[in-house]
């Protein structure tokens, strides 16, 4: 035996998924320290938010075989929660640290995520700049939610301006402690994703149609489709 495992507490109070669950989706909640990521995840999660960690090298290429578990690797911790959507689908919410030095973790977490919510604390807007920049670079669709602790200091327009947020990125107010409010944030993100997907779908259909038609003159003029996000080139 490699280890006796006596240090491990038994798994208590776990809420298992249905046996039919076969497809898990991810949404990432990013924000600076104290912005309320864990609070938001906890308010909508069906399980108590769990915390786990990943050990990685700065190169972001998994574990360094030479360095093994030693000094060259960094440990990053993150929270997550879970929402059962249907008999087969389950959504995992990840609270990701927004600090710059964790960028290599982000790209991992984001790979395959539906989208992201950037949670901002207006007292520390600058904490969100890097997160937004990173998401844009990575090409992950996102919305921004201002976690409003009853502080009416700034209008959403002012926040948008301070964040230099493009008009097409939704910006909403929320109270991360409130389940309904957090739920609305997630719904807002999914609606935004659907709008982006819908905007793309007709464009693709149009291209298909034009291709099969013999007479190009009969094709309706097409608005140029500019991709919303650029593919990142690592």
């Amino acid at each position, binding site marked *: 035996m490699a280890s006796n495992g006596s240090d491990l507490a038994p798994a208590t109070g776990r809420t298992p998924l249905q046996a039919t669950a076969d497809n898990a989706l991810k949404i990432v909640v990013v924000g600076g320290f104290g912005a309320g990521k864990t609070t938001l995840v906890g308010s909508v999660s069906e399980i108590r938010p769990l915390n786990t960690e990943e050990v990685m090298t700065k190169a972001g290429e998994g574990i360094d075989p030479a360095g093994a578990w030693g000094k060259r690797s960094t440990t990053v911790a993150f929270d997550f929660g879970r929402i059962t959507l249907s008999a087969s689908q389950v959504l995992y919410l990840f609270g990701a640290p927004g600090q710059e030095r964790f960028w290599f973790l982000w790209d991992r977490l984001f790979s*395959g995520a539906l989208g992201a919510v950037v949670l901002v604390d207006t007292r520390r807007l600058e904490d969100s700049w890097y997160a937004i920049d990173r998401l844009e670079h990575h090409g992950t669709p996102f919305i921004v939610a201002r976690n409003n602790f009853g502080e009416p200091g700034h209008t959403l327009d002012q926040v948008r301006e301070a964040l230099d947020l493009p008009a097409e990125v939704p910006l909403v107010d929320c109270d991360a402690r409130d389940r309904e409010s957090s739920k609305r944030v997630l719904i807002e993100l999914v609606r935004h994703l659907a709008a982006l997907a819908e905007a793309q779908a007709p464009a693709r259909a149009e291209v298909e149609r034009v291709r099969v038609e013999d007479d190009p003159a009969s094709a309706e003029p097409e608005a140029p489709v500019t991709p919303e996000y650029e593919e990142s080139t690592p």
Partner: protein
Amino acid sequence: MSSGPVLPGRDDDPDRLYTITRGRSRSPENAFDLVTLIVAEREPAPGMQSEHVRILRMCEAPTAVVEVAAELALPVSVVKILLGDLLETGAITARHPRFAPNKARLPDLDTLKQVLHGLQRL
């Protein structure tokens, strides 16, 4: 073999992680996503490594890789190595996320509608 007392709960003692993974540090990188759902296909066998036993018990119902890591209080990479062992012997099966983002990183509308309905029902 680890020497001395093992600290309770999570610790990042490299020696402990080295022991659990029997010296391996490279996880089968593409075999598991953070949210790949793991399902145990058999009962733990006598003499199995304790972490393997715990994984098999935990995964009697589908359990995401990240939940296994949280429950075992081990880094995700370490858990992936352990899961790799179990997958290789057929002791577990893996239900991978079906969503593969397209070039624009957008999920398909059907998936989004299902997610929306699920959230609205909460």
